[in-house]
């Protein structure tokens, strides 16, 4: 019985090892990293069109066999005619010509590896997500015999979605105007009083100046949950504003004024970010209108306001505005994690905001 078990284990081990041996394609392994960034945060294999800098590409060749490799020549075909730059690096003699990057590695012992790094400038613009394949060809000698290993590494160049920044401004305003027109016969549509405007201005200033500073100051204390220090107060204050003012357009006006204040105090670029600010306001105002003029009068509505603000604001930032304005493609899981945290902040903030709003309203004469 013991012999049978041992035989079974041996068979299993052999079965595990054989496929790996069969899969090995020569003694040289090639890996390609595009762009060379922290890929826990930034999207792997994604280049955003229109960056003003070169994104780095790193090709690693490793000798996975047991015999030294010599006279290794690595050639990388750069797709889409992207201009190439070659930074300082340990590997000497790296050249780039006619869309091909070349490097020579005199010898590579068993278990050793070498890196080839170069920069590529993504196209100024692409209409759609465009595949870009880096073709790597390595020729070398093993025991005096010539061998070749090739690898194709597919990446994508994504458009920067610059229309987003301007499109959202227009579409947000259009949606709000349409909604206001739709509800014009309703009693919910009344003009802002001086008190309303003062309330909105004060809360916008708190958001744009005080809580922005507060968040920047303390966000590290909560590590990856640092965003809660902004999303929670934002949800509290939006709920407070909506509940106290009780008029359609309050949230849109609130975020618009917040943007104006941030521009004056911190220098935020109002043109680029205006659409983003308007989107979250329009979303909250629409929710109140759709709920028949429920201005966070129920805790569920207040929490809903926090959630919708978190989803729209963070979703738009990570998936639309970051590529459009900053030319940065975040890793999808990272973007979704941040949206999730914003929703969590919205739930907490909505809950607190409702209690606060009811008390503040009750305290008012």
């Amino acid at each position, binding site marked *: 019985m013991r012999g049978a078990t041992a035989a079974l284990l041996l068979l299993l081990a052999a079965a595990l090892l054989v496929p790996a041996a069969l899969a090995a394609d020569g003694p040289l392994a090639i890996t390609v990293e595009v*762009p*060379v*960034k*922290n890929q826990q*945060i*930034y999207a792997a294999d994604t280049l955003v069109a229109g*960056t*003003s*800098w*070169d994104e*780095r590409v790193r090709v690693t060749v490793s000798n996975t066999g047991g015999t030294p490799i010599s006279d290794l020549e690595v050639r990388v075909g750069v797709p889409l005619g992207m201009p190439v730059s070659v*930074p*300082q*690096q*340990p590997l000497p003699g790296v050249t780039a010509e006619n869309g091909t990057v070349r490097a020579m590695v005199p010898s590579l012992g068993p278990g050793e590896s070498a890196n080839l790094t170069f*920069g590529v400038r993504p196209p100024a613009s692409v209409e759609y997500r465009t595949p870009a394949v880096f073709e790597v060809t390595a020729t070398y000698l093993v025991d005096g015999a010539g061998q070749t290993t090739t690898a194709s590494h597919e990446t994508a160049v994504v458009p920067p979605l610059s229309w987003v920044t301007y499109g959202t401004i227009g579409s947000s305003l259009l949606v709000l105007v349409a909604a206001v027109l739709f509800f014009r016969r309703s009693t919910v549509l009344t003009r802002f009083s*001086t*008190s309303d405007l*003062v*309330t909105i*201005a*004060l809360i916008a*200033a*708190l958001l744009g*100046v*005080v809580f922005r*500073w*507060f968040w*920047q*100051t*303390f*966000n*590290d*204390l909560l*590590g*990856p949950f*640092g965003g809660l220090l902004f999303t929670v107060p934002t949800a509290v204050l939006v709920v407070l504003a909506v509940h106290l003012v009780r008029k359609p357009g309050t949230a849109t006006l609130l975020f618009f004024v917040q943007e104006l204040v941030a521009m*004056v*105090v*911190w*220098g*935020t*670029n109002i043109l680029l970010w205006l659409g983003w600010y308007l989107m979250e306001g329009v979303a909250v105002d629409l929710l109140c209108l759709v709920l028949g003029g429920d201005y966070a009068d129920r805790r569920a509505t207040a929490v809903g306001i926090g959630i919708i603000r978190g989803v729209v604001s963070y979703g738009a930032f990570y998936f639309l505005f970051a590529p459009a304005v900053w030319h*940065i493609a975040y890793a999808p899981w990272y973007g979704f994690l941040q949206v999730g945290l914003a929703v969590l902040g919205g739930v907490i903030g909505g809950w607190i905001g409702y209690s606060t709003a009811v*008390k503040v309203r009750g*305290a*008012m*004469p």
Partner: protein
Amino acid sequence: MTRGAAAIALALLLLLAPPAAAGEWRGAGSPLALVAEGTVHGTVLTGGGHGYTSENPYAEYAELPAGTVTFARLSVPVWNYNEADTLDVLVNGQALPWEGAPRIVSAWGVASYLFDASGAARPGTNALEARYVNENGGPYGLYLTAVVENQTMPLTRFFVYEGNAALGPATRLDREVVEVDAVVETEGLVNATLATMQIAGTAGERDRLLFNDHLLGEDVGRAKTGPYLDVDTFDVTPYVNATGNRVVFERGDETYIHPFAAALVLTYADGTGVPGTGVTVHEPGRSGGGGVPLPVVGVLLLCVAGAGYLFFDRRRRRP
């Protein structure tokens, strides 16, 4: 005092108290100051960095020519400095001692760490590496300024300036002026270059860089070296004066931009009567900024006044 009022007072106190354990608004930073100067047979090399990429470790390589490295300073601009952060820098595998804190911090934690790399940098390829602990932050670059002396090379006079000036609306700073406080020989001058390093420039927002009122470039800070990083070299040979040389970084329509480094390097023909002086190193500036920004205090005061207005306005309207 009611519990609610006490809670509001406590919240205000927390907001206004100088934070002890986290990064905060660090103010306008520090102007670029002269940190090294001299005249040697040799050359001065500057550069290094590929922008903010959140890589950890962050690696760069610098090639230095044959000779003796008599001065080498590594400037590491870092985003989002907080007191608990660490930054370990190695040059060719040799750990560089650091002071436990950045030299200059400005704005929202744009930090300038300075390391003396004179004993670690050498001719040939130098491996520079930064390993760090910094939640939500990291280096923009590893910027090396090195003086390599070599008697076979031309006579070179140089002025190296380092700092971290936060130009932006929040600091009310629109320009950074670097005055070269020295009489410069113009006889026998073969070549003059100005090397600069700036952080946080944005493409399309037009800043300006001037040398002795000659425009060297517009939108120089446009993140061309890497995300949020610009490293540049300009030929300023025709513009050098005997006295009153100056570099002007103008913010223009940049929302933020931080000039970090400038080096004026003058190369002379053989036989010029420019005396060799060796290298003189000056203590770099130090600034931690800190405190609550004025707009935050102003808005909090406004809110108190506004809340009072709303309260009395509603009481006045009460039937």
